[in-house]
């Protein structure tokens, strides 16, 4: 009897998980199908849309990579993301370290204050920031994005790193300082190597957050060759009213998968930041 019940429980579990996986992943399965289907197969309403009724094709991928600006979008995204990562690290690492180490009451408050600025949404800031970048002559330039993206990476990453630095016992660096290292030396040679996983997390988040960003890129950039993937694909691969679904889905899929794989590995740490490190 208990065995039958266990099997029923397993069955229930897999059914439930199956339904959730279907709900979450179906749009991406749908992209895979459209990426490799011939146009004729895609646009015949009577064909079973879930299967390949005609042999698969690489035409959409070829069109995407050779006849559109897709590679340029990928390159722009990569360039912006990497520069934003560097800026974020330069600003957030020292700030987080100082807040975690020297600050008592006011530091905690300041840390929370910095985190709260993460909740001020781009949808409130984009109008003044659009004027701001125009004033600096940066409209239609990737530099406008590089200047503005740290508005969401710095607050969140500072907060995240603060949590990481707090988990490293003070004794370790104090011992290093007794052994003759300066405060800076201790930070650089002892603390930073220990918090490498925290720094890596920040690298991943600063990059993915930049890659996901939509509203600033939509507002600041209208020249096709300056667009990033997240606006280039939905805005530019649609020619007039004609949706080129094959290349469009291919473009969405190719850009989504690598970043999703990396992000999944770091998701737990990201969430630890949201829950204010309250749950260990």
């Amino acid at each position, binding site marked *: 009897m208990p065995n039958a019940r266990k099997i029923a429980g397993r069955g229930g579990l897999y059914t439930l998980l199956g339904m959730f996986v279907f709900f979450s992943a179906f*749009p991406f399965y749908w992209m895979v199908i459209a990426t490799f289907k011939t146009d004729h197969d895609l646009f015949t309403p009577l064909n079973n849309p879930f299967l390949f009724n005609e042999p698969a094709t690489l035409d959409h991928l070829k069109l995407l990579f050779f006849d559109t600006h897709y590679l340029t979008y990928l390159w722009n995204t990569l360039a912006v993301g990497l520069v934003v990562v560097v800026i974020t690290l*330069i600003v957030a690492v020292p700030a987080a370290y100082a807040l975690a180490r020297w600050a008592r009451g006011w530091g905690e408050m300041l840390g929370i204050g910095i985190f709260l600025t993460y909740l001020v949404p781009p949808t*409130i800031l984009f*109008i003044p920031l659009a*004027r701001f970048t125009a004033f600096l002559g940066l409209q239609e330039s990737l530099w406008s994005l590089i200047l503005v993206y740290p508005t969401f990476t710095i607050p969140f990453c500072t907060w995240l790193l603060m949590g990481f630095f707090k988990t490293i016992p003070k004794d370790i660096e104090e011992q290093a300082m007794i052994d003759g290292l300066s405060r800076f030396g201790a930070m650089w040679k002892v603390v930073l190597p220990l918090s490498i996983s925290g720094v890596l997390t920040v690298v991943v988040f600063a990059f993915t957050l930049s890659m996901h960003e939509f509203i600033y890129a*939509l507002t600041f950039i209208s020249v096709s060759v300056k667009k990033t993937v*997240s606006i280039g694909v939905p805005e530019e691969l649609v020619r007039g009213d004609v949706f080129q679904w094959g290349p469009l889905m291919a473009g*969405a899929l190719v850009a989504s998968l690598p970043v999703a794989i990396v992000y999944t590995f770091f998701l737990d740490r990201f969430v630890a930041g949201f829950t204010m490190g309250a749950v260990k």
Partner: protein
Amino acid sequence: MSRPTVSDPAVDGAHAGIRDREGALAKLMIAPAILYIVAMIGVPFVLSILYSLSDATTGDPSIRIVGLRNFAAALKDPVFRLSLWNTVLFTLVSQCFVVLLSRLLATALLKQFRGKWIVRFLIMLPWTAPISLGTIGWLWMFDSIFSPIDWVLRYVGLLGAPGALLGAGTNLYYLGIPGLAISSVILVDIWRILPLATVIQLAGLSSIPRDLLEAAEVDGATPWRRTLMITIPLTLPITSIAFLFGVVFTFTDLVVVYVLTRGGPVNTTQVLSTWTFFRGIEGGNLAEGAAISLFMFPLLAAVAFLILRAARRTEVV
């Protein structure tokens, strides 16, 4: 500025001298972050308030204060009122679903089973992939002619035949009919936030001390009772954190509506963020755009306050 005493007496003397220099160093290290945040978040926020009180346009962006005229105009505009209502409706409905579904999903993911990493990867996709690209997938699924949902409905005979339950037409036009368009947007909102809420809930569930549940079981508490008396009260703060972040992200999101419907058909799915964009940037009326966006602020401030309170309570646990 009390500092816990260091046990080694040799260090104590040295510390007194270093402390001042360290204070200066600390300020120096924090300064760039603060300066950047003030310049790029603080100043623009104030600027946004100034714009909302002015008559600035893209053509003439100089700020001349005209009072609360833009807010009054916005409140009189039926499209704005609809946007405000939609924003609240989409957020509340989607996030109620998200809280329930994420709890269910988190409970399932807590169990051991084979292939967990791939299940996790697939379930997290809506949050880990760029949102605009995921939404494009939905746009193709809601296509007015080639929607696979319509195909299935036709296949099982619910659509496209005379006398069929959902009508004799071949398609439902998900994004072309107000009620369906609203449901579609809410569905994608749920889809988008579910992974984030699930991971937060998972963190909460796995933080419950196992011996507490075991002790209750030994004492003869039924699974229901254990859930009701232990799991739910202990995870309430973290569940509310999941809910509140879901509210913030959905309330301020522009992408889902922008990519799926652009606010259509005839503004029936317009939300505050898209309406801000269409009036402020595409329409060139910076002042009105800023005023519309600022209507988001009271709710965000309230949510921030509640998040802090919930976070403090989790720490007590």
